[in-house]
């Protein structure tokens, strides 16, 4: 029986626009994350994909408690995260770590690698100096760096090596969950493969769970067990990686997958051409948010928002009127 490590229940994050003050109650809201729910089993990976503005990074920030949720709950190991304070919150922050996109801006250029990796340990205050030094050396070895490099500064390393440093720091507190926000999109192709393999090895070695945010479908499908596709703050389709990438059901997922550029001149499935761009999350279109670009939009799509319901028998869910029997009849 696998256990659920992380659960998001109806997460919402609305950002008010404009200035606070008189009449502020009616301010327009950006619905960055709008009713997002998912579960993550311990030791597995969830990938969240979508284009800019879909709310994937905001979701990650909510999970890290860098932003407070507007509504909904986050449960980690069964315990409420949003209301955690003091000791419980510190505990959560030990167990959940993050690796960000750009290893050039996520590492302090004035700190030596040794101190970058040790900083969470020093802040935690549980280890002695010698213990910390040994653990840092071990971490650097684990991520494929020479422990002798611990005295150097970030600028002396290449992008791929810096991302290894960021990963070592992320692992220093022995977390159970690591949030990976576009961990390889700033890296070169040949380096990207090294880091993806490293992340897989570490997952096996430390029994880690990952939430991976990325816009690159191939990377997410390669790394993750489950994929959630987001569009304008909502999950439009979620299922196992294999199922979603082999037979996407939601028209947006289909379009997204058909816009992939596989590295072969042939073997490209006919592309579903979307017109226009992602509408603003301030005034999302009524009904299904995707209807303005959807090649299959029906009248009902403009009025009624489709619910996220099970489709097929592979445990997949999707939100589209085409996939619900009720709308097809009407």
């Amino acid at each position: 029986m696998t256990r659920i490590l992380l659960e998001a229940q109806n997460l919402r994050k609305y950002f008010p626009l404009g200035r606070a003050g008189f009449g502020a109650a009616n301010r327009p809201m950006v619905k960055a994350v709008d009713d997002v729910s998912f579960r993550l089993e311990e030791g597995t990976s969830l990938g969240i994909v979508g284009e800019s503005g879909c709310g994937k990074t905001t979701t990650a920030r909510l999970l890290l408690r860098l932003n407070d949720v507007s509504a909904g709950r986050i449960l980690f190991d069964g315990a409420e995260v949003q209301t955690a304070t003091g000791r419980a919150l510190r505990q959560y922050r030990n167990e959940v770590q993050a690796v960000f996109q750009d290893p050039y801006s996520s590492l302090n250029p004035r700190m030596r690698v040794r101190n970058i990796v040790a900083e969470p340990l020093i802040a935690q205050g549980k280890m002695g100096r010698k213990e910390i030094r040994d653990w840092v050396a071990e971490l650097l070895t684990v991520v494929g760096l020479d422990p002798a490099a611990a005295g150097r500064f970030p600028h002396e390393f290449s992008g791929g090596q810096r991302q290894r440093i960021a990963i070592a720091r992320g692992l220093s507190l022995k977390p159970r969950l690591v949030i990976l926000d576009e961990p390889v999109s700033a890296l070169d192709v040949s380096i990207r493969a090294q880091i993806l393999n490293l992340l897989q090895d570490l997952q096996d070695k430390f029994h880690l769970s990952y939430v991976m945010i990325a816009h690159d479908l191939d990377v997410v499908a390669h790394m993750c067990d489950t994929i959630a596709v987001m569009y304008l703050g909502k999950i439009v389709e979620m299922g196992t990686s294999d199922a979603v990438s082999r037979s996407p059901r939601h028209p947006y997922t289909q379009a997204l997958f058909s816009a992939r550029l596989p590295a072969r001149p042939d073997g490209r499935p006919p592309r579903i051409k979307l017109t226009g761009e992602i509408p603003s999350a301030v005034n999302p279109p009524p009904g299904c948010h995707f209807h303005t670009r959807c090649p299959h939009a029906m009248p009902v799509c403009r009025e009624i928002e489709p619910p996220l319901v099970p489709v097929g028998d592979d445990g997949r869910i999707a939100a589209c009127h085409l996939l619900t029997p009720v709308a097809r009849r009407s």
Partner: protein
Amino acid sequence: MKQGEPLLQVMDLKTQILSRDGGRVVRAVDGVSFELQRGETLGIIGESGSGKSMTAMSILGILPEAARIVGGQIFFNGGNLLAKSAEEMRRLRGEQLSMILQDPMVSLDPLFTIGSQLAEPLRLHRSLSGAALRGRMTDLLSAVSIPSPEMRLHQHPHQMSGGMLQRIVGAIAISCDPQLLIADEPTTALDPTVQAQFLDLLEQLRDSKNLSLIVVTHDFGVAARLCDHVMVMYAGKIVEKGPIREIFDNPKHPYTKALLASIPDATETGNRRLRTIEGQPPDLSQLPPGCPFAPRCPSVVARCRVEYPPEYEIGPDHVASCWQVYVQ
């Protein structure tokens, strides 16, 4: 296949960058030669530091101050670009030679309207003004599928999305009917569905305007989508070049093979490990003797560390520089 004179001919191009203290010389482009036929699309593929962008900038004559061309020749339309004065090059750029860079937020000036930025090359190179200028500008915006062009002319860059801005950059690039368009990572800053739209647009412009295109990219997918021929660069050198299909189906250089094998593919199932290229790209100011890929190459032989391999012909138009290819 080859008819007449190529539009662009680059011969043994060498571009170097001097470090700030003048002590180190970075060989960014190290003996690059290729030809581009009229109407052809050539892809330059490489990772950061491979010299792909420096090759493009050398052709356009827009090298950064510390960089200079130290050898080779570039012929465009029969004329030697390296013999032209700065003024002559300036006239050529925007008129016959044109470019699209990676990030539209950087290529466009945030303080000026779209209209004034689109008008600049038309005033300069075509001496258009008044109604003729306006007409030409709305035509151009329509050509890159910008809805309600009249309104857009009065807007500033911040009022538009990234995909739309890149279309505007495209409109500026084709405004004077150039013969050669160089696009350096034109879609890297765009979202996947928007990237697909922009690549469609490039293809359509190329075909309708009879453009020759050089696409500089790190993404094999982009090259596969657009190019007739590609060349793969590593450490300032072309390691392999050939027709796109040949490069994908029959790669010969170990670097090309490894790069292709390291790309994850969503349609493949099962949890397989990606093939990696161990190690890091070399420091271009301290290149090892012989082949610069040798320290990372899975099939390295003793000779690779001593002598740089010459180009071997593998098939029609398909060449690779590798001693292993020679052995085979």
